[in-house]
């Protein structure tokens, strides 16, 4: 497997880095956050990202995408993660695009994928049913009624659920989980928007006799388990890449602060106790880089060890982002806990990203199980 960036990936990284530095530095995040905009992202910026092809990286060329694969979108998310760029790329460009590409019917693909690629359509995945990640659906059900399905129940903490146009719903049918598509404005959908501590959008979505017609069934009824697991792993790997970007940036901000800030007449970066802590963080980050790279490329290279590698990446970067964001705030001293400095923003993002799609303990557990103990 390749642990070195391909040329395509290197190009995408470079392009996104420039975009993020110019268009979406952290000041962009702050302006979105402090605006009255309940969507938590900027439609104009999202359109520009789509124009650069970022929304279509996982979409086949015939539907307007570039099909650059997970390694491609991984480096993009990493760079956007550095500046905390708020955008629908994760829920739409990764999760939505993957579901539709993998198991969409031809007409579903025709209808949605080009719209995702050009930035007109956003999606969300209504999956979780409680405050902690649990990859088993038990509360939301879909009952057959004639040719249609009737969905009832409540989903929690749907990423981008507050604004996404198209909701991908995972629900229990008679013999296993199934997937459905629904317009957010459909009758029987009640969306309760929440702003999370990282100022991103999340929603609880309640379905009350939501009626789904056959053309909005996604994939085979009762057969969604494997697809859900695969897309969850894709999501985790993509999220890990974004977290790596955040952790790298938080680390660099902190190192720069250590080189600038003076106390007792010297730079605080000259204090050995801080140096050793910084060196340990650097070491952990080096390990995370390898895990994240591997977790992205293992999909493109069709490894037979994907779930284990993904759990490795999500757990390691979860721990490391946690560590670095805590240490970063502490090493900044007083200004670290003020809203004026950026480091605190990474602290907030770290906890949300660590929590969703399985925290480190969840993934350690899964790794152990997959390794046979």
């Amino acid at each position, binding site marked *: 497997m390749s642990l070195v960036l391909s040329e395509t990936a290197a190009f995408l990284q470079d392009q996104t880095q420039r975009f993020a530095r110019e268009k979406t530095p952290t000041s962009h995040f702050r302006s979105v956050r402090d605006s009255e905009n309940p969507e938590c992202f900027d439609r104009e910026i999202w359109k520009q990202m789509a124009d650069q092809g970022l929304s279509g990286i996982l979409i086949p060329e015939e539907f307007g995408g570039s099909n650059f694969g997970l390694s491609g979108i991984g480096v993009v998310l990493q760079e956007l993660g550095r500046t905390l760029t708020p955008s629908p790329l994760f829920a739409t460009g990764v999760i939505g695009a993957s579901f539709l590409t993998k198991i969409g019917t031809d007409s579903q693909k025709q209808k949605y994928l080009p719209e995702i690629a050009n930035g007109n359509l956003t999606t969300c995945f209504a999956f979780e049913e409680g405050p902690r990640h649990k990859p088993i659906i038990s509360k939301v059900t879909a009952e057959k009624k004639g040719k249609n399905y009737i969905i009832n129940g409540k989903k929690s903490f749907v990423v981008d659920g507050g604004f996404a146009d198209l909701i991908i719903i995972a629900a229990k049918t008679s013999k296993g989980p199934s997937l459905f598509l629904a317009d957010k404005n459909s009758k029987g959908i009640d969306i309760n928007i929440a702003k999370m501590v990282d*100022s991103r959008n999340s929603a609880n979505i309640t379905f009350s006799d939501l009626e789904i017609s056959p053309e909005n069934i996604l994939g085979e009824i009762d057969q969604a388990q494997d697809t859900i697991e695969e897309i969850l792993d894709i999501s985790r790997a993509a999220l890990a890449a974004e977290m790596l970007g955040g952790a790298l940036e938080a680390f660099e901000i902190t190192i720069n602060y250590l080189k600038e800030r003076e106390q007792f007449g010297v730079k605080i970066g000259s204090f050995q106790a801080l140096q050793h802590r910084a060196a340990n963080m650097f070491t952990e980050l080096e390990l995370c880089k390898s895990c994240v790279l591997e977790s992205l490329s293992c999909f493109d290279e069709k490894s037979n060890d994907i779930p284990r590698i993904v759990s490795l990446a999500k757990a390691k970067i979860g721990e490391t982002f946690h560590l670095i964001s805590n240490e970063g705030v*502490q090493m900044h001293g007083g200004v670290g806990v003020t*809203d004026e400095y950026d480091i605190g923003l990474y602290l907030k993002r770290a906890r949300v990203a660590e929590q969703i799609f399985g925290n480190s303990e969840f993934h350690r557990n899964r790794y152990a199980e997959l390794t046979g103990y």
Partner: protein
Amino acid sequence: MTDLTLFREETRDWLETNCPPEMKKPMTPHGMTWGGRNCKFSHPDQELWLKRLGEKGWTAPTWPKEYGGGGLSYDENKILAEEMTNLGTRMPLASFGLWMLGPALLEYASEEQKMEHIPKIIKGEIRWCQGYSEPGSGSDLASLKTKAIEDGDNFIVNGQKVWTSYANECDMIFTLVRTGPQEPKHDGISFLLIDMDQAGVETKPIKLISGASPFCETFFTDAVVPKKNLVHKLNKGWDVAKNLLQHERKMLASMGLGGSKAASKGKTGSGLATLSKKYVEVKDEKIIDEGLRQKIAKCDMNSHAFSLTLKRVSEEAKNSNNGPSAATSIFKLYGSEHNKQKYEIMLEAMGSQALGWEGGEFGPEELAITREWLRTKANSIEGGTSEVQLNVISKRVLDLPQ
């Protein structure tokens, strides 16, 4: 009947008679009394309770009677605290005057100064804030630059302080200022009491990551301070500062103890576990997730060990009759690190439910925990960073070489 048993009975009677009903209910987020000229009481019983205790001097039970204090002995004070806990009475007054300035004044101020300021602290008439840190001087406090120049009977003060708690609501500020610009770092600092109700003093709240603004920047522009407000000798303010910092650390250390009372109650469960049980799977009263359970146990055990240590050191001090010792550095360090850890565990237990900011379906307690988690990040910074505490321990306690 011994004197102490008698004292306990009298105290219990007095408390039962005098504590207004509302003050026997658990504290609410807005129910704290901070005193001061512009004090707002959210319930009239707060005012009554402060007045009754303040007149008896029991807001500062061990301070001398001559300045309005309670004049109680160590043992009597312990009994008073126990009886207040038993009756479930609220703290009558939260005050940096009580916790920090008062003890330092008792040690360093002139008789006139004591007579002037201490009774008002005890009665909650004046609300104080602390003017120590400056933008350029964090852990290196003595590098402060705010200047005071003598001008007849006054000092004229210019400069900027930061991290002044609730300065925008306070009446007076105790500050460290540079009066001897030629002297070595620590030897040119004086301790001044400055009235904030004048044109030369302005405050500006600092927004924190938690969204709250409990601290301000405070600006002095030709602020006028009568010379009678100089505490201790000119250029010897660092002595006062050090003494006062120890009181501050002692106060901050106790913050880590939130969960320890519950933890030491045995079978009744700990606060952390009780909270967690609302969010995770439980079977036969046992938290199923063993990883989380072990983390909670570790944290509870640390609370327990920490509260035993506070008790031990206080028992040791009782005999030796010393003031705050070097061991207070351990408390500040451990208390703040432990409190941070406790909140991280809460977050882990509560999952996304502890990560809300606004909207959605978060309960007020949940939203408060999110903010408080962010607030705890300052615990290991304010009042001397953990790194400073570690330096102090390694140098002063362990006597390791410079």
